[in-house]
């Protein structure tokens, strides 16, 4: 992890390479997109998830891992088709099911969703509403206004 003038830079491993930039949505628990996210609205609909009702659309989704159903590939591909998918997905461990959904969408619609694995301690450097930029393996995090106003707590140690 390095800190530059523009924010914190993290080195991940792109499973689906691409470019994206936008505010982060950090999930507190793993999410199965199937049964957990409505591709028509981009909202979380898993009643067991602490962030039920949150919207992934327009956000860089940061989560520990996918979970549960293998139909999540279809849901991600459909969300990419409809434009409701996250801008990018950052995971603590690789998830083949999500990668497949992104690859198939790329094949069918020439549109995809970058997916990057970040080591667990690095993912902790990102909080909801931080601005995250994804360039292939490289992630830049600019802490949100609210976080940067907290005295003595630089991004990455929150």
């Amino acid at each position, binding site marked *: 992890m390095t800190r530059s003038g523009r924010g914190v830079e993290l080195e991940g491993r792109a499973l689906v390479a691409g470019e994206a930039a936008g505010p982060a949505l950090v999930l507190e628990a793993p999410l199965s997109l199937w*049964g*957990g996210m409505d591709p028509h609205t981009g909202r979380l609909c898993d*009643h067991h998830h602490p962030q039920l009702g949150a919207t992934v659309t327009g956000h860089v989704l940061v989560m520990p891992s996918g979970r*549960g*159903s293998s139909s999540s590939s279809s849901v991600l*591909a459909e969300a*990419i088709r409809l434009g409701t998918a996250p801008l990018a997905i950052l995971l603590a461990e*690789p998830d083949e099911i999500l990668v*497949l959904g992104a690859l198939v969408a790329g094949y069918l619609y020439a549109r995809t969703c970058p997916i990057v694995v970040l080591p667990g301690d690095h993912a902790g450097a990102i909080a909801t509403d931080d601005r995250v930029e994804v360039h292939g393996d490289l992630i830049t995090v600019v802490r949100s206004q609210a976080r940067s106003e907290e005295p003595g707590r630089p991004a990455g140690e929150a």
Partner: protein
Amino acid sequence: MRLSDSDRALLAGAEGPASQLAMRLVVEMGRLAGAAELIDVSSAHIDGCLYHGQAGLDFAERLLGDGAAVRVPTTLNVASLDLLHPRRFRGDPETAGAARRLMDAYVAMGCRQTWTCAPYQLPERPGFGEHVAWAESNAIVFANSVLGARTARYGDFIDICAAITGRVPKAGLHLTGRRRGQLVFDVRALPDGLLDQDVLYPLLGHLVGARSGRLVPVVDGLPAGVDEDRLKAVGAAAASSGEVGLVHVVGSTPEAPTLAEALQHGQPLEVVEVTPAMVRAARDQLTSAGAPEARLVGVNVGTPHFSVAEFGRLVALLAGRPVHPEVEFYASTGRHILARIEALGWLASLEAAGVRLVVDTCTYVTSILEDTAGVVMTSSAKWAWYAPGNLGVRVVLGSLRECVESAVEGRVVRDDALWAGS
């Protein structure tokens, strides 16, 4: 990754664009999993036939249009429509049309019209040590755990690619070392009375899955020879609350004659002592707040699809009594099981009692329920886990007996004796 000559030929497009794309995706998944090579599979089970939107249909029709055909025997999971009872579907005609096109595309690629999430109930099923490419999380757990066959956790898109190429990455649960039990759940503290109850098994699966995540769990301390329906319930629940693809049940599943063998003679990461309170907590997690006191509108059983033995228990518990007129009672199953219960004379008595049979699909993945405003009871942990998100209903998890008594009385009936002291 080492590829065979025929893998390379497919990749180069020697057999057309469909098998080229399928091989590309199989190879991509192999790279991601760090596989050294691909291996043959003897059968496939496809989950991609359930309609989730245009993307899945576009993929299937693209493959079909490019000349795709499966090269190993391939069964189909539940779809969105009950083709034998088409009026059960209450969604819009446009969705029904797209869902039907999806089903037709997979059949046209050479898949068998089994339409069941319990392919292990079909007469021909994989044997011990056989490599297969199965999708559908409960079928995966059953194949690995109960049959001792070997499948990784395949899902939409890659399932049909494996069927088209007959190849999968040598990775995940195909590898002996990845099948080693890691987390032990010791159930010896549970009272014998609870071990005798069918309802224990989905609840046990739920709590095992929730604590296991991606680890391989081992259940130790159950009496030997747990029947297949109970093992099915454990696996389906564990694969819903966790990413479980294999659960060893010591004394019942083929790779776990003893705890030491389930652990491949290693040490577990942790031993969890399962208490009655944990089982009760699992039941409460699978029951919506306030639901037991609310108006009962439905009962749903058969997730995963009901077996002949489970129908036998349902017929016995109903004992000729009709379902309350204000309760919709659905039992989901496969066509092949439907034919068998019809031959046994059970279908007529169930229909006379007001039980509505659903085949080819399942009530929690498609639009079938007439009333979703009240509370629905189920004996399935998987139904209870997914239905609130998919259908917007509130649920009560109960034993099959509790479900039947509730259906007959038209209100949620709980067997307090079952839960006393837990």
